[in-house]
């Protein structure tokens, strides 16, 4: 209410949003990513236990980049669902991140394909001999078998790509025609979309992460994966918003928006801690061998340290550092903390995936190279899309509200 942006101001902002980042920037990450993945492949194929390690690194980094997109998709759906005005200008960033989901999905497809060649280095339930000697796996085999697994994977991927593209396309079309009906449609469909996202993410986490140990199960696991994805998605959004503010790319995105994005990030990170602790405490309390086995594995031979790292780095430090209002509005603090949270999200996934095959924490060229590869290729796509559309939804009916947004 302090300063109302007049129509002229808004037109300037619109014009500025059409500025494009130079297209060359896309080539570098593409080459970098391709080389990194090739390096990882070569290194892995040269050593004896390399392929198995590569499969896990692949899954880890695939899920890592995937969860950034999923977090962004949840963010978009949520903003539409509650008809949020403040977030309109940062929504394009989220839309682009969401639509970049296709890259990690394509890269992860070989993991599912390998199942049909009898590869069981990743998912033990694909090992016919093991299943024949194991009653539990036999009972689970109606769900955990290669064809059904692949069908589900295709379903999740299709749903996500469809949703992500629809959000981005509808929003971009509105940039041209300014049709307010688009907004109404986006809002009304976001409720079923969020429902669908919730279900697919839950089952995808069951399939791709939980079934690494096919005996073990935890009903809260899907929410755990969801909360991690929210943290990852919002961290990346916060970083991009902070960088945009520092570079003064558009005055439509400023500290007020950053403040609210980081508030969401802060809340979702507390939610992550809450869920992670809930899962741990219930298993600890019930003390049933079939549940504790998963945590026992993760509390021995060097893995126990990672639990402490997660508790401190993923929760306590960001919780205290980002608590003051000033910290949430400070681009440097936000970038540092979001980077830290992304690293912690990676560690979290590492802690979920790696103990399943490695005797003790292993970190080397394979992990680094696949990490660089996946991240570079993911952002290559994101940058490309960000360059080919205005960086804010310029004809959204709530644009004025968002531009003049002030955190009370």
């Amino acid at each position, binding site marked *: *209410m302090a300063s109302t942006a007049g129509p002229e101001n808004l037109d300037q902002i619109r014009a500025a949003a059409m500025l494009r980042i130079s297209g060359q920037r896309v080539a570098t990450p593409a080459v970098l990513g391709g080389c990194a993945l090739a390096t990882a492949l070569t290194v892995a194929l040269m050593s004896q236990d390399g392929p198995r390690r590569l499969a896990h690194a692949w899954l880890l980094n695939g899920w890592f980049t995937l969860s950034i997109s999923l977090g962004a998709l949840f963010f978009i759906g949520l903003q539409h669902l509650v008809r949020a005005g403040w977030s309109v200008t940062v929504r394009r960033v989220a839309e682009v991140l969401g639509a970049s989901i296709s890259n990690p999905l394509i890269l992860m497809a070989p993991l599912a394909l390998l199942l049909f060649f009898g590869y069981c280095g990743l998912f033990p339930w694909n090992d016919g001999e093991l299943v024949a000697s194991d009653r539990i796996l036999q009972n689970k085999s109606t769900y955990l078998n290669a064809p059904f697994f692949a069908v589900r994977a295709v379903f999740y991927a299709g749903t996500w790509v469809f949703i992500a593209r629809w959000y981005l396309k509808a929003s971009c079309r509105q940039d041209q025609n300014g049709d307010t009906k688009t907004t109404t449609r986006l809002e009304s469909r976001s409720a079923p979309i969020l429902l669908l996202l919730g279900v697919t993410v839950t089952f995808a986490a069951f399939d791709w992460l939980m079934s690494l140990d096919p005996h073990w199960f935890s009903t809260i696991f899907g929410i755990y994966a969801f909360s991690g994805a929210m943290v990852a998605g919002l961290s990346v959004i916060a970083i991009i918003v902070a960088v945009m503010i520092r570079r003064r790319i558009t005055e439509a995105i400023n500290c007020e928006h950053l403040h609210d994005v980081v508030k969401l990030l802060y809340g979702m990170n507390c939610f992550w801690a809450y869920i992670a602790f809930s899962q741990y405490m219930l298993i600890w309390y019930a*003390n049933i061998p079939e549940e504790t086995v998963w945590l026992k594995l993760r509390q021995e031979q060097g893995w126990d340290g990672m639990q402490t790292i997660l508790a401190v780095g993923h929760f306590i430090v960001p919780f205290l550092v980002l608590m003051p209002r000033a910290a949430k509005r400070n681009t440097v603090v936000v970038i540092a903390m979001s980077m830290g949270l992304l690293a912690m999200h990676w560690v979290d996934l590492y802690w979920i995936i790696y103990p399943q095959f490695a005797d003790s924490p292993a970190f080397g060229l394979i992990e680094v190279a696949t990490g660089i590869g996946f991240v570079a290729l993911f952002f290559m796509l994101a940058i490309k899309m960000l360059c080919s559309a205005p960086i804010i939804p310029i004809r959204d009916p709530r644009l004025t509200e968002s531009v003049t947004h002030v955190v009370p």
Partner: protein
Amino acid sequence: MSTVAPPRPEAVPEIEPESNGLVASFNSVDTVLEAVRVLRSGGIERIDVHSPHPIHGLDDALGLKGSPLPWGAIAGAAIGLGSGIWMAWWMNAVDYPFIISGKPLFSIIPSLPIAFELAILFAAFAVFGGAIAFGGMPKLANQKFRIPSFARATDDRYVLAVDSRDKCFDLVGTRALLDEVGGEGVTDIPPVATSEKRIPRTVWMAAAVLCVLALVPAVLIAKARNSTSTKPRLSFVSDMDHQPKFKPQTTNSFFPDGRSMRPQVEGTVARDDLREDDQYYLGRNSGHGGLAANAAEKDSDGWVTAFPLTVDESLIRRGRERYQIFCATCHGQGGDGDGLVTLRALELEQGTWVKPTSLHAEPIRGQPVGRLFNSISNGVRKMPGYASQIPVRDRWGIVAYVRALQRTRAATSADVPSEILPNMRELN
């Protein structure tokens, strides 16, 4: 009643300031913000703005510093967290230590939920109490409420109030200033009457009644604690008091045999009940009889001749202790069959009393250890079995001790450790 009433002092009119300040109404956010800026640039600091909704930028305009309330919240949260953990520790590990399903008496993990809840609760208390205290409440009277136009501050006007205690306040000048910046209906804030500073009589009465009422539950509880009643107690959580579960030794129409205690499913073995090792659990080589072995069986029935466990000093010491508890009453400390019970029975000339066999009798000395073990477990003729009182390992300990006892009777100097031998005489 002829005392002369002292002359009543003249009611001195209280010297009250003419005005406690000024209020002025504004009809837009922008004008009130502008007025605040003008007044502050004129040096006036004690300004308050009453508005129907929060105004962005007002804090800055008024020069308000950040509220200390967040620190109160964080302090409350820290106290709550600490006291939650302390409470869990003190209750479970100190005041009422009780091991539940093998968990440690105190662990941080299950303490966190209560600590978390208390952190939230205490932070909320701190904020609630702090907000009330910083708001200057409870306030018995607010003179601004006497001004009719002030009521619109909750509706459609922004009311600016200047306190007369401000050092730059002067009634005429400030009033002119307020008129100048567009304040409508500039009014004096009336002074507070002395009577309004006192707590009204009705409030005192109500408080007194509440205090008395508060005693009622305490009195009822005290009465209940000091009297007896034949009525069944009230059950507030009746589904916990009367659970739909089956108790031992009750009937149950669900099962065809009508028993609620279910017999073990055929072929199942309870934990630690497998007892596969016959030598250890029965004292005989496998293939010779089952659990219901009879002590009257012959020596030839496959009794174990060597101890099926390692015999060391701690086992024998344990055996001596158990022997003195379970056997010595009848068999005597030395095993000669002269225990206190036996002596007393003989003294009373109890005809039915069978004198316990001397453990040093030749047939017993010759018995294999397995048979001795069996005698303890299942009893022999008049001697009862002790399987239900003495665990298996302890029974073997007793056997080892009995063997040691037997050996004392035929001991030679070679059996005595060489460092003790020279002093044997003195020991005697």
